[in-house]
């Protein structure tokens, strides 16, 4: 049953042109384009463009997939009545949830390897198997964290249009304050303040550090990890309450 559901979930994703372009085409294209503009710069930690922005763009794709194709889709199915109709069939809820999670992991892994491949071909990114394994492991953890946060946020929406507007706005906010466009440190003060409350910014910092084997348990790392853990606890509480309310 799980494989059948997953097959159809992936088929449905492939037919959503908006998701395909916005999530799987635009970020890699932007990664290449920005590299042409800023490829010669040196970034924090004495890193090259590819060392900094390869994990960043992988995270951006992950965010896009999880928020649009997982979170927003939940709202869409809930508000259009699809969820209600499916719930009337004898398919276990855990199969539907597991399929959604696996779909996100497959799509984000596709994003991971496509951006990585572009980095190697276009920007001479070095290949290191051990680093790849640890980065991919952390990337899967980020997937799980984002799925939890996304589930909690979208549980508040009962209207598809407001969820869509929210998704588009939040994508812009994350893009600017997550360190995906230009380094947050180079931006005005108010943007850096917003960045501090943006969990994606903290995830991005940690991911870049792990990707480049620069991860250290210092004050900044503790703040980032502590903040993300606190958000996950809040998200789990919200999910629990919203599930209880719906039942």
């Amino acid at each position: 049953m799980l494989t059948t559901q997953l097959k159809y979930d992936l088929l449905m994703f492939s037919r959503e042109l908006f998701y395909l372009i916005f999530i799987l085409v635009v970020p890699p294209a932007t990664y290449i384009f920005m590299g042409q503009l800023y490829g010669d710069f040196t970034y924090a930690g004495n890193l090259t463009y590819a060392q900094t922005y390869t994990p960043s763009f992988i995270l951006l794709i992950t965010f896009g997939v999880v928020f649009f194709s997982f979170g927003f889709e939940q709202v869409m199915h809930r508000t259009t009545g699809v969820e209600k109709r499916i719930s009337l069939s004898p398919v276990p809820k855990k199969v539907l949830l597991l399929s959604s999670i696996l779909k996100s992991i497959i799509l984000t892994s596709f994003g991971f390897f496509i951006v990585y491949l572009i980095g190697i071909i276009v920007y001479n990114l070095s290949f290191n198997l051990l680093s790849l394994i640890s980065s991919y492991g952390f990337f899967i953890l980020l997937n799980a964290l984002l799925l939890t946060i996304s589930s909690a946020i979208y549980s508040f929406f009962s209207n598809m249009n407001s969820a869509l507007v929210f998704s588009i706005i939040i994508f812009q906010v994350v893009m600017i304050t997550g360190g995906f466009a230009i380094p947050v440190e180079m931006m005005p003060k108010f943007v850096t303040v917003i960045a501090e409350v943006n969990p994606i910014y903290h995830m991005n910092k940690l991911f870049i550090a792990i990707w480049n084997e620069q991860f250290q348990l210092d004050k900044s790392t503790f703040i980032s990890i502590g903040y993300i853990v606190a958000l996950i606890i809040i998200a789990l509480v919200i999910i629990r309450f919203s599930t209880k309310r719906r039942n």
Partner: protein
Amino acid sequence: MAIIDVRNLQKSYGNNQVLKGVNFQAQEGEVIGVIGKNGAGKSTFLEILMTIKSYDIGTVIVFDEDIKSIPTNRLEQLRQNISVVLQPTQFYKTLKVGELLKLFKAYYQSPVDIEKIIADFKLEAHRKKYFDKLSGGWKQIVSLAIAFLSEPKLLILDEPTTGLDPHMRNLLWSYIKNYNDKTGGTVILTTHNMDEIELYCDKVMLINNGVNEVFETTENILASGYKSINAFYLQSVSI
């Protein structure tokens, strides 16, 4: 054989008590129409029978199972015997009709041949169309075809013919009657079309002011002096 037994069913939304003590029984093979004005609680009642809505007080027995205390795994088994057509009907919009049938066949682990269902419901011309692109009538037909995939013992239809032209309505009813005749399955439906009740239903339940004011055979209602079920409804329910 009793398929459903409902006693003193009560349900509120906040301070609004919609159902104030409904009693209802459905036997195997019966076609029962549930009527009442908008907001009377018909859909709430059906959704409780569908096992997707909780209730406050009362007992609801479906296929000998008390649905309030049933564990999740048995609830999923119970749902294999129930099929529904909702209003409005919605499925995954980016799946084609043939794909939807295959997916639901997997959900119900149904032995029914998809090709037979497509032939029975005259869906050949629509099998490669996206569900979202179908007209309202064909969406209802597809929904009914999916409902029959599971060979259900109980079919629950929430306003199945709303918005359909007379031909589509006849087509839909021919399938429902055919199912009822062939399988002896029980059908419970809501509708605002009293002609349908008169033509096709064995029994009528009128929900008014939160209770089943009338629960009687169509025949007996007509025998009691009403010219039609429409006349019965208009005289029984005030605006």
